[in-house]
């Protein structure tokens, strides 16, 4: 064995230990290694002292670990050596110093130093100069309390130190929490600190313990050191982000006492479910449960919870548990508070209360003993007060958990026979449900999306739980006024405990899961007092039984000719299968946006064919304006006006006339008119409009010319060309423009063009760059499109490509950089990596979290995504501070499910909540008292349709007109944002200004839209469920002068990786990295 052993490295470990890494070469088997210290480096007989240590040999490396306690026994000036035992022989081995830098460690008032300059390992010991606080005992108590005690080491030149205060400071937000409860005994130099986190709840991040000490008349900040052997200690549980967390105290990298909160990952409950049953509206879950780790008597399972998987609605079941863990939970659906209203999947949880926090654990039924038949049922529940009925099925999920599936499928029905003859519909079938005590009242037809009903003649016979029915409609005798040209559905009304429930009649008895294409009925004709009625019976894809009511008139366009100055077409028509030969026919043109119908008479009638002509003078005479017109054929039958849509019938005629271009005739300047047959519906339409770019004959040539020119001149164009744009070239205020501005200002290696339409809304912004602004669809645009290297877009590829290729997105040959127009988080999107022909080279995101959404939910490849931050963030400036009158901004998200009818809008919860807020006297009071303005900015659709519904508000409430200001200005100017789910928050929060989320309809939003983040826990602002809570938050913020809460700095980390106004620069650099 060689005598030389080298010390390569030495460093501190956690738990107050030191590690030495030595290099030695040996082939011997080593039995033991010990540390020896003494005044000389030799194996002489001078006084030597051995230290307790542990060691490990890996190849040629020897690792030795010594505790601080042992290390402190080394006398000053000692030299460290090794005592190696091998083959029963102990030998002293010298260590040669190979350290590259000096090592020092301070504890318990002493500093130990090993210099790299010495040949041997010499330990010098000195009293520390500064003051040291060492905490050597930490205890955790229920009630979120920690007791710390330790020793205060006075430094060599310190006299009469005085501890002023003790505080915890968050590493990220720098927020301080002062601990009032501490005592110091200066005579024996000990201290005690009592930290009650019930009073000072902490949030995520590292909270380090400091003390301000007055030393020699100066205040010094000192870390309180962690001097316990085990490196961490679990504290009490708390609720954070709606889930169970616990406090933990630990030693941080600087050996300091630190606190943080940790999400609980343990499962505390195990289940053995032996029965889930639904009997007479009472649902019972029975079994055994075992709770591990209960720290106090108050910790227990409090109830069972059903939670809807999409909307997160909850229903609570009380639970009874005996001493052995046998439990039963019951819920009666007769109680209207317990209703499971929402269709879909409901997961089942047990709620365990730990230290006052509810922890939800899914109920698992993986146990072998639990047979599926004991937990599976499919039965109806109902509530007579509310007239509510649903079917509930319980089952075991793929993951082995208990779940419920709720549907409207209450009864099983079979339509055995539909007799469609003599103008009569007779439907025979049966209905049953073995688990529901019900009777069948009647069957009728209900208009789809309407109120009208058609009463049927019913015969019902009960036989062995089966209700056989025969329902009859005589189409000849009913009043057709309200029913013509509409669809009706068969509705079956059942009675449960004297209460009527109307249900869809769904033929679901047999195994045909989709009858819509399998079972086809012949058309039924009926003479209704002379009106030629036609009824079509059909199933939809869910097997609901419907009828469509129309007439027997058919009209077909059998010829269509384009003449020089007119369009000529022939129509043949039949009714009740006989060709029509009448002079009392006309064409009716209907425009969806106009109320009046335009009528046109035939030119000629011969051989059952009607000839029509349309030309410019006729259009003028009829007063037809620009637009699209549906064409109907109308005749008089027995004094009834009967009308039908004109259709194409011959495949060749349809194909030849399927585009506007095929028959377009120029009228004046650039207005054309044309007839076309829609290929899908085969309906004939008349249109008057300008030609689209792609329909212009010259345009294609121009485009090809540009392509040729680009090919020829490409080699002479030295700098690569980048086309940048946003929102179809209609605006210049978003990421596209911000990035363009950056490139123009800072970079010069490429030619940059901003693609803009003539009437850009932000014309002012682009004015300074007019030489680099590319007019949408100009020849230069075509040319540069073919030349360019990248399309850099904000909203979509149409931002930069000419209209002529808009319908060929899937063939797009150009590489795309996607700048994005918001942060993807609160709204689910339909987008994936293959969009745009898979040409997206780079997609801008703001954080790793967002990158993961793209990769996991939209299948992007990691290299397609760049974490840089949005361009427009670079230009955001907070202008609110200078405002004398502070502004509050209120921006609700658009809910497309509230559209169309005004009555629906006015009765919606959305309208009522917002109008209630805006008219609230308390809000007006706050605005008045603190001299504030509230700017209300409803979605453009609401502005357009229902703005008058928001009139006559307080004078301090201003409804923002989108034409007069930009969202960006609003963001910059205001001090507080109130929204629900709008991604505007990410711009607002970027400026570190507070946000309050007003989420009164979270369940609805989740059902309609869905979100990638948890809208309860991941948001960067306070959440108010009610108007009252919202007003409280508003006054809170008003009183703190809109101070941003530090916790949201931490929550923001998820959404922004950078905050440095270099987003555009990073994007530019990432683009340049693409090969």
């Amino acid at each position, binding site marked *: 064995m060689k005598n030389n052993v080298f010390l390569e490295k030495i460093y501190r470990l956690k738990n107050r230990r030191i590690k030495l890494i030595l290099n030695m070469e040996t082939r011997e088997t080593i039995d033991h290694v010990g540390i020896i210290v003494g005044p000389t480096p030799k194996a002489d007989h001078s006084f030597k002292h051995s230290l307790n240590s542990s060691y490990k040999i890996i190849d040629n490396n020897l690792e030795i670990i010594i505790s601080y306690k042992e290390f402190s026994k080394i006398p000053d000036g000692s030299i460290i050596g090794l005592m190696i035992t091998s083959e029963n022989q102990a030998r002293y081995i010298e260590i040669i110093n190979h350290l590259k830098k000096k090592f020092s460690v301070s504890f318990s008032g002493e500093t130990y130093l090993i210099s790299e300059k010495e040949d041997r390992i010499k330990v010098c010991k000195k009293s520390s100069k500064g003051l040291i606080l060492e905490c050597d005992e930490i205890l955790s108590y229920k009630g979120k309390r920690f007791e710390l005690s330790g020793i205060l080491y006075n430094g060599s030149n310190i006299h009469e130190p005085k501890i002023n205060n003790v505080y915890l400071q968050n590493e990220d937000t720098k927020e301080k929490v002062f601990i009032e409860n501490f005592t110091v005994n200066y005579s024996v130099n000990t201290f005690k600190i009592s930290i009650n986190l019930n009073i000072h709840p902490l949030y995520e991040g590292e909270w380090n313990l400091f003390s301000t000490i007055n030393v020699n008349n100066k205040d010094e900040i000192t870390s309180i050191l962690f001097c316990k052997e085990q490196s961490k200690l679990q504290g009490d549980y708390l609720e954070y982000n709606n889930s169970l967390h616990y406090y933990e105290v630990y030693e941080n990298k600087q050996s300091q006492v630190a606190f943080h909160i940790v999400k609980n990952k343990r499962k505390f409950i195990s289940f053995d479910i032996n029965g889930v049953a639904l009997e007479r509206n009472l649902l019972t879950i029975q079994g055994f449960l075992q709770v591990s780790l209960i720290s106090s008597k108050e910790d227990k399972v409090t109830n069972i919870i059903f939670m809807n998987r999409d909307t997160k609605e909850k229903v609570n079941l009380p639970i009874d548990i005996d001493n052995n863990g046998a439990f039963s939970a019951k819920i009666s659906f007769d109680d209207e508070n317990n209703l499971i209203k929402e269709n879909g999947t409901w997961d089942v949880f047990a709620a365990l209360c730990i230290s006052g926090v509810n922890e939800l654990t899914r109920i698992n039924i993986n146990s072998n003993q639990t047979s599926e038949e004991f937990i599976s049922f499919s039965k109806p529940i109902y509530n007579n007060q509310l007239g509510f009925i649903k079917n509930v099925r319980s089952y075991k999920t793929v993951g082995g958990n208990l779940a419920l599936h709720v549907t409207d499928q209450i009864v099983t029905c079979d339509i*055995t*026979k*539909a*007799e469609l003859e003599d103008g009569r519909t007779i439907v025979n079938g049966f209905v049953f449900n073995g688990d529901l005590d019900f009777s069948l009242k009647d069957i009728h037809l209900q208009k789809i999306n309407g109120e009208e009903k058609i009463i049927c003649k019913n015969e019902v016979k009960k036989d062995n739980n089966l209700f056989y029915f025969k329902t009859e409609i005589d189409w000849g005798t009913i009043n057709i006024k309200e029913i013509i040209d509409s669809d009706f559905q068969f509705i079956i009304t059942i009675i449960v405990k004297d209460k009527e429930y109307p249900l869809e009649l769904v033929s679901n008895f047999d*195994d*045909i899961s989709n009858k819509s*294409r*399998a*079972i*086809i*009925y*012949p058309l039924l004709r009926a003479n209704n007092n002379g009106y030629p009625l036609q009824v079509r019976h059909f199933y939809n894809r869910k097997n609901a039984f419907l009828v469509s009511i129309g007439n027997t008139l058919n009209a077909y366009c059998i010829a269509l000719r384009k003449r020089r100055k007119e369009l000529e077409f022939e129509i043949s028509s039949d009714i009740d299968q006989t060709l029509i030969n009448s002079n009392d026919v006309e064409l009716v043109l209907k425009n969806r946006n106009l109320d009046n119908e335009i009528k046109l008479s035939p030119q000629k009638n011969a051989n059952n064919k009607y000839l029509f002509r349309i030309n410019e003078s006729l259009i003028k005479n009829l007063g037809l304006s620009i637009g699209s017109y549906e064409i109907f054929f109308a005749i008089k039958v027995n004094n009834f006006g009967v009308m039908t849509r004109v259709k194409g019938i011959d495949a060749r005629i349809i194909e030849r006339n399927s585009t506007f271009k095929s028959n377009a005739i120029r009228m004046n300047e650039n207005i054309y008119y044309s007839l076309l047959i829609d290929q899908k519906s085969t309906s004939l339409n008349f249109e008057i409009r300008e030609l689209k770019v792609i329909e212009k004959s010259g345009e294609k040539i121009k485009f090809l010319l540009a392509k040729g020119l680009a090919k020829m001149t490409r080699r002479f164009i030295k700098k690569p060309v980048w086309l940048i744009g946003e929102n179809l070239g209609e605006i210049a205020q978003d990421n596209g423009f911000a990035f363009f501005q950056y490139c123009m200002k800072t970079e010069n290696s490429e030619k940059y063009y901003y693609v803009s339409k003539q009437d850009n809304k932000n014309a002012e912004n682009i004015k300074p760059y007019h030489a680099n602004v590319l007019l949408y669809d100009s020849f230069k645009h075509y040319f540069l499109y073919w030349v360019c290297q990248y399309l850099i877009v904000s909203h979509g590829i149409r931002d930069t490509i000419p209209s002529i290729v808009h319908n060929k997105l*899937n*063939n797009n*040959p150009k590489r795309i950089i996607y700048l994005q127009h918001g942060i993807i988080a609160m709204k689910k999107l339909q987008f994936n990596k293959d969009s745009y*022909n898979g040409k997206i080279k780079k997609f801008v995101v703001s954080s790793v979290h967002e990158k993961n959404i793209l990769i996991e939910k939209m299948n992007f490849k990691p290299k397609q995504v760049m974490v840089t931050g949005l361009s427009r963030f670079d230009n955001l400036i907070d202008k609110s501070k200078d405002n004398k009158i502070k502004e509050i901004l209120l921006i609700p998200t658009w809910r497309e499910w509230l559209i169309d009818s005004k009555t629906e809008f006015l009765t919606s919860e959305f309208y009522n909540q917002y109008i209630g807020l805006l008219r609230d006297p308390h809000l007006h009071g706050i605005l008045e008292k603190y001299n504030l303005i509230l700017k209300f900015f409803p979605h453009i659709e609401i502005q357009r349709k229902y703005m008058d519904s928001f009139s006559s508000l307080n004078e301090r409430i201003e409804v923002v007109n989108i034409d007069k200001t930009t969202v960006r200005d609003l963001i910059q100017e205001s001090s507080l944002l109130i929204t629900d789910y709008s991604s505007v928050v990410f711009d607002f929060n970027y400026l570190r200004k507070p946000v309050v989320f007003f989420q009164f309809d979270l369940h609805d939003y989740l059902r309609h839209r869905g979100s990638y983040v948890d809208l309860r826990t991941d948001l960067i602002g306070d959440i108010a469920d009610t108007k009252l809570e919202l007003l409280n938050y508003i006054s809170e913020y008003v009183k703190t002068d809109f101070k941003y809460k530090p916790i949201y700095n931490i929550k923001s980390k998820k959404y922004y990786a950078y905050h440095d106004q270099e987003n555009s620069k990073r994007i530019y650099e990432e683009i340049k990295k693409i090969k």
Partner: protein
Amino acid sequence: MKITFLVYNIYGMGGTVRTVANIANFFASKDYLVEIISIRRTSENPLFILDPKIKLTPLIDARRGMLFRANTPGYKKFLINLLLKIPSILIDKNEDLYKMFNLFIDLKLRSVIKRINKGVLITTIPSFNILSVKYSNKAVIKIGQEHKFFEAHPEGLQKKIKKYYGKLDGLTCLTSSDKANYEDVLKEGQVKIYKIENATHIPEETAKLDKKVIIAAGRFSYEKGYDLLILAFSEVIKKHPDWKLKIFGTGGEEESLRNLIFEQKAYNNIYLMPKTDKIIKEMINSSVYALSSRSESFGMVLIEAMSVGVPCVSFACTGPREVILDHVDGLLVEEGNIEDFTNSLLTLIESESLRKEMGTKAKENVERYTFNIVGGKWEELIQEQVKQKQKS
């Protein structure tokens, strides 16, 4: 050893496709190198599950918008579009699928056959068999498959068959009578003729035969005789209005079949169902299978129905005659005799015990079409042919 199949569309449905898929899977499981050349590709993946070791080579991608790649140059598109419009010269005009071929496919087909230089080439329709003789390499063992008897082919094709089939190495027929028929026609050639039935798996499940459902499946074409079936079943309903007939398929005759159902006022009982890839499951949920074809060379679908214990009623064409043992595991009806067909259906409808008896027998009797038997025949054929080739 490499085995190449040439088929029209391995991505489609129907008996031929299933048979090829079954044999190809069998060979792949025996570690042969298997490639299937499919003229067309109509979906992302074949409907029948294929061994992942099998190489698929579609000649043209007939899916919407997939014919050209995004960057196919314009002149090429123009040329291809032109070729696609010119009728085929390689495929015989009498071939059922003639209209689906064109000059573009001809060119691709010719070059793909010429490229095969070793192993076995198995071709599935007469025109392919002929092309195999014309263009493939001498070293290749050329096996043709024949599903019809000789006289069933039109005269023009008959001439070609006489001229070229003799130069095949092997020809497989489905039935004994077909084999005898071709041995007679091709007695001057060197070709060896085999009888190999189409093979199937016997599923574990067996139909309970308690549902009042009769089914049929296949293209809606004149040949399949569904019009006859509708007429026959319309008579059945008069006695048994609670029985239903489900016909699975698609095709040009749909409209006229639908009108016939309306005419017969049988729309409550006869359903034209969209084609399905779960036909076995549908068979398990039925009680009788009805085969009403005007001609059927083999009747793969009968074997499938029988394999889940469903008794069949069928017109006694060549194929069914060999598959069904009349009054033992099914009922054969004189070809075209609708009244007898109705009566046979009634016989089975009215006796559950008879259905069960025949169903059980049927499941036993189709054992001869399993891979153990049929696969063995194919392996024998290949080995014999390889020896033959080595000799010469």
